[in-house]
């Protein structure tokens, strides 16, 4: 299974380096005041969406699945590798963005207190986990080509929902139009964490079931 994870990173190394340049570029634009600092954790969500799709796309193109399923890794190993690769990218990406935001915040280059940076990165990590939890079984079932449109719909829904929640959250403050119960506002991070982690785990078992029946 680790071989398949390693394969993902070898195949995606060029794309990952492009994302790194993307992060540096956006960090620069954030420092220049073009964007709000909170666009940086959004990159984690974007990468979380793009990488599994690209990875499955490359595998489809190479007809890798047929070969990998014939190795000792088997179908279960392939599914586990997909989820582990996605998780590694998300966690490592989040850590990188968090360090970047903290450094830029502490040096005064961007206006983002450490607590807000941490909260923003963790929230985006959770959203990205939810997104991957939804998209991975679809990718595994239909392949990259057929999943593209479904993914776009999900992307719009997830981001639209996230923006709506953000807007509502802003309105929670003094003078805000929508009054969430205080307990709900307090519980929201925990709920988001549980939904994302729980959803990711449930999604893994759904994918195992789907891939177990798939004819290669």
């Amino acid at each position, binding site marked *: 299974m680790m*071989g398949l994870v390693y394969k993902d990173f070898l195949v995606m190394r060029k794309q990952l380096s492009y994302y790194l340049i993307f992060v540096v570029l956006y960090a620069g634009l954030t420092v220049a005041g073009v964007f709000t600092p909170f666009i940086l954790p959004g990159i984690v969500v974007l990468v979380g969406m793009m990488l599994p799709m690209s990875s499955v796309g490359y595998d489809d*193109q190479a007809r890798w699945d*047929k070969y*990998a399923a*014939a*190795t000792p890794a088997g179908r279960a190993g392939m599914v586990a590798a997909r989820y582990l690769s996605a998780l590694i990218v998300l966690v490592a990406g989040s850590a990188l963005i968090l360090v970047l935001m903290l450094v830029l915040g502490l040096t005064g280059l961007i206006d983002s207190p450490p607590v807000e940076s941490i909260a923003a990165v963790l929230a985006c990590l959770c959203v990205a986990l939810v997104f991957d939890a939804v998209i991975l079984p679809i990718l595994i079932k239909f392949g990259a080509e057929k999943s593209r449109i479904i993914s776009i719909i999900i992307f719009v829904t997830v981001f639209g929902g996230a923006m709506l929640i953000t807007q509502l959250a802003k309105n929670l403050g003094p003078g805000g139009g929508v009054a969430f119960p205080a307990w709900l506002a307090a519980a929201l991070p925990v709920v988001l964490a549980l939904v994302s982690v729980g959803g990711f785990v449930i999604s893994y078992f759904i994918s195992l079931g789907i891939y177990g029946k798939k004819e290669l």
Partner: protein
Amino acid sequence: MENAIEIRHLTKDYGSFKLSDVSFCVPGGSIVGLIGENGAGKSTTIKCILNLIRRDAGEILLLGRDNIKDERLVKEDIGVVLDESTFHDTLKAPDVGKILRRVYKHWDSGLFQDYLRKFSLPADKYIKEFSRGMKMKLSIAAALSSRPKLLILDEATGGLDPVVRDEILDEFLNFIQDEDHAILISSHITSDLEKVADYVVYLHRGQVAIQGAKDELLEQYGRLVCSRADMAAVDDAFVVGRRTSQFGCEALIQNKEKFRRLYPGLTVDPVTLEEIMVFTVKGDVQS
């Protein structure tokens, strides 16, 4: 030694095509050629063996173990070459070794390097720059470097030039020098199998039409060329298939020696696997 592969009553129904009651063995220390026309069921059989598709009925034992219950264990000892390169274009040959050494417990990195050198596969080129022959050699190098006991090859020599094919067939013969090793190779290039196979399984429309030791099959069958009048006198029990034209008849004859005794005036020529296949597929043909 035990059979490397035992397939009993394998059935897979796609609706439009059915692999039906296929049974055969791959004895240890041998090369078995799986032949048949396109769509005869060769790839379906291999996919069932590798558990890439679900079988509807039957049993498959690989190296004495069930291919599904003991899948992970048994696949450590199987090297696989599929009909096309399955490695990503953006990888280089050494990358394949780095990946597979984390997949196979018995992966031999030194052996893989040796094969890359032996097959003249450049380490600094991307796979997308490789020719089809180079890609196939890379797949074979990867399959052999996992130190397998059983090699399964699906149309591995298809589309390759004769020189590369010969080089690859030599490698299979080297592999089989160890009598614990065995190879199942599917191909519709029967001349390749005539060179290396010990046994032949001929699939026709999803069923085993003919199977046996290659030399015995070639000994058992013969090609009869004669006039229509001579053909009319031949007992139909000897005739597997015939081709009739305005100039005469050509037929695939079984029980060649008995036929020669009964019809000393008729000439029976040696036959090739391809002729056995073609005559069996066509049956009686008027041209």
